[in-house]
């Protein structure tokens, strides 16, 4: 009797095991894998493949293996002397893009931190309103917003017209198609991306640390440098990454507000896929851009890891 019961329970376990066969569980991850493949791995693979092909006659690619695309990212052939030189135009564009992204990040930080601090120190029921105001521009198309800035600052635009009418200036100040216009546009576009993560870390900041620092003879600047900034570092870094990466590839703002005089990496890539009709070069440039970002992120993560070990 007892023996048959034991046998019964044995088969019950086997049945349960069969019905929940762990070997097929990975099937449940299919949707996630599909999304990852379609939107991340797939396009990257396409770009990587294209970068090793020959350009087609009217755009597109010809399915012939070639490293020309990659070669042209870094070098150019002087057709008169037949020598190989560094592609200084590309490097200049790369440098310009990196510095634009860098200055945008710095500007966004300088303007974004006080804004985030202001919101984080409002009464709790008011903060949502301020955050809402910060995110409103997101609801409008980037191009439209950029043209709106253009309308504001062009020679016959709102600011110049009124400044002249009020007699502040005699002739319009050239603001459009300048570095100032690009900086203004970039700041406007990327400010929310800086404000939100910094706000998130400021909101979590325990203001008793601030009081403790005041109590220990720290003045306002010292409190900011020694306590608030170190304790909100994660938000500042996250905001900087969120601003730096898209700023590196941005092309709408430099083109519309900068007048396309100075080409950026984004414009260069767009050009290769458009008028340039050199998709392999465009693909190679895209991957180069991505590689720069990846290396920057890796360095950051490595440093963070080391800092964490010190803790």
């Amino acid at each position, binding site marked *: 009797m007892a023996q048959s019961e034991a046998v019964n329970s044995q088969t019950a376990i086997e049945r349960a095991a069969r019905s929940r066969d762990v070997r097929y569980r990975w099937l449940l991850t299919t949707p996630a894998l599909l999304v990852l493949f379609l939107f991340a791995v797939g396009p990257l693979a396409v770009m990587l493949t294209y970068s090793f092909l020959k350009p087609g006659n009217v755009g597109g690619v010809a399915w012939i293996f070639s490293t020309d695309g990659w070669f042209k990212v870094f070098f150019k052939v002087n057709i008169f002397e037949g020598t190989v030189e560094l592609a200084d135009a590309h490097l200049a564009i790369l440098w310009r893009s990196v510095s634009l992204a860098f200055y945008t990040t710095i500007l966004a930080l300088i303007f974004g931190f006080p804004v985030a601090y202001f919101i984080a120190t409002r009464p709790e029921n008011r903060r949502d309103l301020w955050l809402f105001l910060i995110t409103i521009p997101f609801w409008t198309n980037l191009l439209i917003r950029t043209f709106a800035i253009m309308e504001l600052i062009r020679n016959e635009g709102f600011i110049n017209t009124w400044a002249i009418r009020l007699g502040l200036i005699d002739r319009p100040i050239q603001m459009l198609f300048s570095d100032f216009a690009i900086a203004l546009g970039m700041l406007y576009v990327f400010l929310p991306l800086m404000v939100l993560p910094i706000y998130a870390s400021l909101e979590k900041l325990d203001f008793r640390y601030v009081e403790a620092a005041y*109590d220990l*003879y720290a003045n306002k600047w010292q409190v900011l440098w020694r306590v608030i900034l170190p304790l909100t570092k994660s938000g500042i870094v996250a905001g900087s990454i969120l601003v730096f990466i898209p700023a590196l590839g941005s092309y709408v703002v430099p083109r519309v507000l900068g007048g396309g005089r100075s080409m950026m990496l984004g414009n260069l890539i767009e050009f290769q896929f458009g008028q340039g009709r050199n998709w392999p070069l465009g693909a190679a440039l895209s991957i180069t851009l991505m590689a720069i970002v990846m290396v920057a992120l890796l360095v950051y993560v490595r440093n963070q890891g080391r800092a964490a070990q010190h*803790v």
Partner: protein
Amino acid sequence: MSNVIEGMEQTAVDIRSVSKVFGIGADRFAALDQISVAIRQNEFFTLLGPSGCGKTTLLRIIAGFDHPSEGEIWLDGVNISALPPFKRPINTVFQNYALFPHMTVAENIGFGLEMLRKPKDEIRATVGEMLRLVRMEELATRRVSQISGGQQQRVALARALAPRPKVLLLDEPLSALDLKLRKEMQIELKRLQGETGITFIFVTHDQEEALTMSDRIAVMSRGKMLQIGTPREIYDHPNDRFVANFIGDTNFLPAEIVTLDGDCAKIKLASGAIVNAGLPEDARPSGAVTIVVRPEQAELVSGESRADLTGRIENIVYFGTDTHYHLKIQDGSAFVVRQQSRAGRADSWKLGQACGVAFCDGAAQVLRS
């Protein structure tokens, strides 16, 4: 030596009719109502009261985090009411310590000195000295997240003491510790007060903590200081119903003033017995009053000859060190007598037994009406 004794008598923190009002109109709420007190140098002064009584508000005003709506704070003869916290030679040990999580133990302790721009050598020496003072030498390079609650407490103390403030404010610093650690820290705090010569202002809602550690206690309720005095004065001669109730267990009895004699009075109890009772400061009560008698300052007696009260034992609760007898006295109200246990003394009192209660000398105290 005479300096020290003179110093003891000198006022360190002088709080002059300080009021603090929050809100306006119907929401108007006076957190502090005309508080005046002079705290002496190197005194262990405790603000005792339930939560919401204004003790933390007063501490924050002394530290400079809040500003009084009315009144002034003076420190060593200087009006510091308008100074921000970082210009006051006053440091705080916060309730949850507020140690900087991005710094080591040593960096935390050195922070105040660094902000005062002391030379590096001096900072290092003082930090070392402070670590020794709170017995934390081995943990100097640890992050604050890597040390226990009791150790954090000691670091917070060391951090506040390192800049050698004139006054140390302690905002319920022991409330997060378990009982054993709290007892240790109570002794530690008294030792530090003695060794540093700094004035300690200590906030707590724990009456036992206040009684064991303080030189003087101010009992606060609803923004007012009800009584200021030594632990013994507060305990033995509470002059307010709230004070008597808040500190220790108490019996309240109705009585009538018969004659006044200095700070003493002869009063008549409901039972008809006449006893001596202490009077609250500056008060000349007359007619019906309430008196308090501590449970351990009364004893059970048989027979009515010595009894001030008579009643019946309703409940006996044995606590080990002592026994509580809950009585119902003639007029129907309750009265508790606490008797200390003694080895070999068998308990002779039985439940339901009729008995008398005799007050010890000076046990009765008249309350302010």
